[in-house]
């Protein structure tokens, strides 16, 4: 074997282009015991990028609770896993694809969906649901329409073709995302609990197999791009964006699941960010082995690809596997049946090194352990976010029904129908609760139980008070799961922030994680997987801190669940929980007064748990089928959403004293609206009282208008028209 260090000498400029600091480059030289060649520099740079190494967040992520008796796999694998009984497990994760989606929204979003699905089926799970947490710039910003349209068609185009329903998520608009949109994709899958696949390679000499699509020059340096700030020239980075092929993904799912039903696979890992490099290094590191790759054997789409390009390519729909010896022919037959590439590209070794050959040249040889373990870890300086000032002048009074009309039509509360009708949300025929409610509900195929899922975050709270905002994001998913009658099990997270090298941004990150940890702890609702997206800044302007949370819960019996639709005329409506009419940082202030001001609402996760568990008992005992949590927009908005979903009017009693705006639009936490026939409601209220949970009757289902005693009424038709018109209008479709 010829020993060689090909390529040009490494210059300071090349080091900077690879996003490595001088200090980090020194660590590279120490790890290797010599200067790297270009391929090796590329490998180090992607492995040590923020995206792969979590160097700025690792010490804080460690503080999050990750354990519970039902957790099968916490963070650190491709996805998190929880036990859902009957020998089944739910596998789920959320991941960002923010930067690629801003540059090329359709392909960026599509490949984000493809990547997260691979993370889930890599573990042996069939994907059963997709969700997306999306954040765009101001509705009237020049690029917003183009970005929304591209992202939505990318998500739909990919998920629809693969045949996994896109059942939920969230879409919000704020000028803070004008230069950096957020596309966070979540996938939930189901696997037999005793047939889960991991990435740790084992068995010296075992073959390393490449399957899926061929490798091209796509997305080279995507992982480092995902960790770099934008400037006005970023739009020229287009060539590095990957193109997705959902058809191949569908075949890859079927082929992998078919092979997983045998005992051929020792370890498996998808090629996501940093492609072949990251997948091979992680498999070797987790298994404590070395790995040898022959690049000539890698299926290639383009000619004359260099080792650097092959190792760093982010071509989509590819997987790396270690097979048990002798299983190659059987595995090859499976992949050939599905018309996918299958190639033996290397083997496991006992030397603990990543050794890469091309032709008869050794193009890289790196000890695996330091490549992973010597990755820099930073305890970045942080500065706590100052407490927000008290709510200033509340402005002129607005009639509550006028404010209601405005809120129901505002971009953040308007109907998302224009979006979710472009997503196949019913394929697989197990969607029980379609988009538009508190949480999506997907039946576990062939059973009477279901998974509930919701993604949430309220960035305006996170910006004003990161700790409360982080906790609230966790709590809101929990509350949404409870509102459909699910036992919340665990969360995945996608932490989207600006540049962590700025102490005030790092302060937001630290605050949000602290809040998340408190809420997870209090709710017994651990983090099992997640992803961090930093440097979401353009020209020094950071996004609002956005720790998007994806929650998963279990409904044990589909006959005992709830949704937001009012179902029967004459039902009484009651408010569970209590509030002080808190208006600081509400949508009411923002939409009616253009003010994002004041303190955030008080949040007590322990109290949330008491209120939520009391509501959950009412649903689980089969007595409550109509429930909605109160969040963005407050009580009157929640009540209107229930009326619109059920197509039934509602007459609400106004409070006798106090501030009507605070009562109607305050965003006090830990509250739900419930509806039931009068005879049933008596029993429900008695149960709540016995549990010391405040609850009181506030209205009755009747007619075809939303009526607030003493403040007039608006017909459902008028409210619906306003609620439905906004997105089509913004998108130029109406």
């Amino acid at each position, binding site marked *: 074997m010829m020993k060689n260090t090909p390529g040009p000498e490494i210059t300071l400029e090349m080091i900077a282009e690879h996003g490595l600091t001088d200090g980090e480059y020194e660590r590279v030289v120490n790890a290797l015991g010599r200067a790297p060649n270009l391929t090796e520099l590329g490998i180090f740079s992607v492995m040590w990028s923020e995206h792969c190494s979590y160097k700025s967040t690792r010490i804080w992520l460690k503080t999050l609770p990750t354990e519970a008796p039902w957790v099968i796999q916490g963070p650190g694998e491709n996805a998190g896993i929880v036990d859902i009984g009957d020998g089944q497990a739910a596998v789920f994760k959320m991941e960002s694809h923010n930067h690629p989606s801003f540059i090329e929204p359709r392909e960026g979003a599509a490949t984000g969906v493809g990547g997260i699905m691979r993370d889930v089926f890599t573990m042996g799970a069939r994907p059963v649901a997709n969700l997306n947490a999306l954040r765009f710039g101001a509705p009237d910003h020049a690029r917003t329409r183009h970005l929304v349209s591209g992202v939505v068609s990318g998500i739909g185009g990919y998920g629809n073709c693969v045949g996994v329903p896109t059942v939920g998520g969230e879409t919000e608009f704020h000028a803070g995302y004008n230069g950096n949109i957020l596309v966070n994709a979540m996938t939930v899958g189901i696997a037999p609990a005793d047939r889960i696949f991991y990435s740790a390679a084992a068995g010296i000499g075992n073959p390393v197999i490449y399957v899926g699509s061929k490798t091209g020059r796509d997305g080279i340096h995507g992982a480092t791009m995902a960790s770099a700030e934008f400037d006005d020239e970023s739009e020229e980075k287009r060539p590095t964006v990957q193109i997705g092929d959902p058809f191949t993904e*569908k075949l890859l799912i079927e082929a992998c699941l078919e092979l997983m039903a045998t005992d051929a696979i020792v370890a498996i890992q998808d090629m996501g960010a940093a492609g072949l490099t990251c997948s091979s290094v992680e498999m070797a590191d987790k298994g404590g082995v070395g790995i040898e790759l022959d690049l000539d054997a890698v299926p290639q789409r383009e000619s004359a690809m260099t080792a650097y390009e092959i190792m760093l390519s982010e071509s989509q729909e590819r997987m790396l596997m270690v097979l048990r010896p002798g299983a190659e022919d059987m595995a090859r037959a499976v992949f050939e049946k599905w018309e996918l590439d299958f190639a033996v590209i290397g083997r496991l070794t006992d030397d603990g090194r990543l050794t890469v050959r091309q032709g008869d040249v050794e193009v890289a040889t790196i000890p695996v352990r330091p490549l992973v373990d010597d990755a820099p870890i930073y305890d970045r300086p942080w500065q706590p976010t100052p407490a927000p000032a008290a709510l200033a002048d509340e402005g002129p009074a607005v009639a509550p029904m006028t404010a209601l009309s405005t809120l129901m039509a505002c971009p953040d509360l308007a109907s998302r129908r224009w979006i979710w009708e472009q997503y196949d949300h*019913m*394929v697989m*025929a197990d969607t029980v609760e*379609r988009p538009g409610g508190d949480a999506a509900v997907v039946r576990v195929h062939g059973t009477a139980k279901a998974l509930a899922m919701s993604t949430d975050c309220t960035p305006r709270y996170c910006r004003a008070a990161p700790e409360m905002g982080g906790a609230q994001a966790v709590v809101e998913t929990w509350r949404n799961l409870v509102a459909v009658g699910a036992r919340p099990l665990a969360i995945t997270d996608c932490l989207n922030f600006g540049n962590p090298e700025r102490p005030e941004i790092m302060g937001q990150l630290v605050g949000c994680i602290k809040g998340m940890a408190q809420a997870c702890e209090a709710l017994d609702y651990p983090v099992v997987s997640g992803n961090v997206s930093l440097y979401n800044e353009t020209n020094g302007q950071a996004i609002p801190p956005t720790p998007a949370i994806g929650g998963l819960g279990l409904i044990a019996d589909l006959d005992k669940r709830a949704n937001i639709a009012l179902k029967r005329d004459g039902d009484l409506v009651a408010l569970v929980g209590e509030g002080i009419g808190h208006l600081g940082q509400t949508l009411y202030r923002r939409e009616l007064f253009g003010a994002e001001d004041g303190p955030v609402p008080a949040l007590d996760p322990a109290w949330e748990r008491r209120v939520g568990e009391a509501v959950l008992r009412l649903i689980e005992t089969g007595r409550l089928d109509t429930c909605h949590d109160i969040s963005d927009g407050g009580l009157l908005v929640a009540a209107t959403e229930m009326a619109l979903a059920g197509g039934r009017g509602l007459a609400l009693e106004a409070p006798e004293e106090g501030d009507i705006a605070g009562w109607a639009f305050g965003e006090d936490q830990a509250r739900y609206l419930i509806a039931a026939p009068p005879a049933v409601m008596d029993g429900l209220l008695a149960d709540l009282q016995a549990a010391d949970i405040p609850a009181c009757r506030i209205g009755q289902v009747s007619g075809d208008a939303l009526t607030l005693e003493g403040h007039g009424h608006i017909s459902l038709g008028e409210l619906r028209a306003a609620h439905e018109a906004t997105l089509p209008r913004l998108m130029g479709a109406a």
Partner: protein
Amino acid sequence: MKAAVIVFPGSNCDRDVRVALEAVDGVAVDMVWHGEGDFEAADLIVLPGGFSYGDYLRSGAMAAHSPVMKEVVARAGKGVPVLGICNGFQVLTEAGLLPGALLANAGLNFVCRDVHVRVENSQTLFASGLEQGAVLRIPVAHHDGQYFADDETLAELADNEQIAFRYAAGETPGPANPNGSVQDIAGIYNATKTVLGLMPHPERAADPRHGGSDGQAIFAGLAQALG
């Protein structure tokens, strides 16, 4: 009744239609891989929804030339009933078993929602469980569902009572016709009424948990008619 569900690479409603068929008493289902030139005798052949071959080139175009389709065309010629749902409908038109073509939706976006369809001809095998003029609520989910045929073909379809379903007004939001199909056509028969293609997905309205079970009547009626 024994049904054969053809699975193309990229089919994704094959399992759903199988479940809906098997929910009917006495129905057995075989899944047939597209690469098979021959398959066991069946009383009904189903081409399911999905994105066969990624719907690259044109929806259904490449599946129409898949090895199994020669056999499907041959059996259809002998009178074996064939049901094509969504992508299956597209495959049937591309294979020449049904007239016309399915173009991109007039709104240019994928559309997934409930629609209402009116039964235009109940005197067929497929409509055994349906009443003439009945309006069913069934979901659609497609990007290329705009039925098109030239005037001459449309006249023939009408004269020969080959129009199976038309989109109809109902309580769901949005226009009754979700894709701009000519004459609101949602599904058509061949001349002998032994081949049916339709864009809506009856298998997604086959279980009360789906929020409606109007589609189940099609499967139940077929099973009864075919024994």
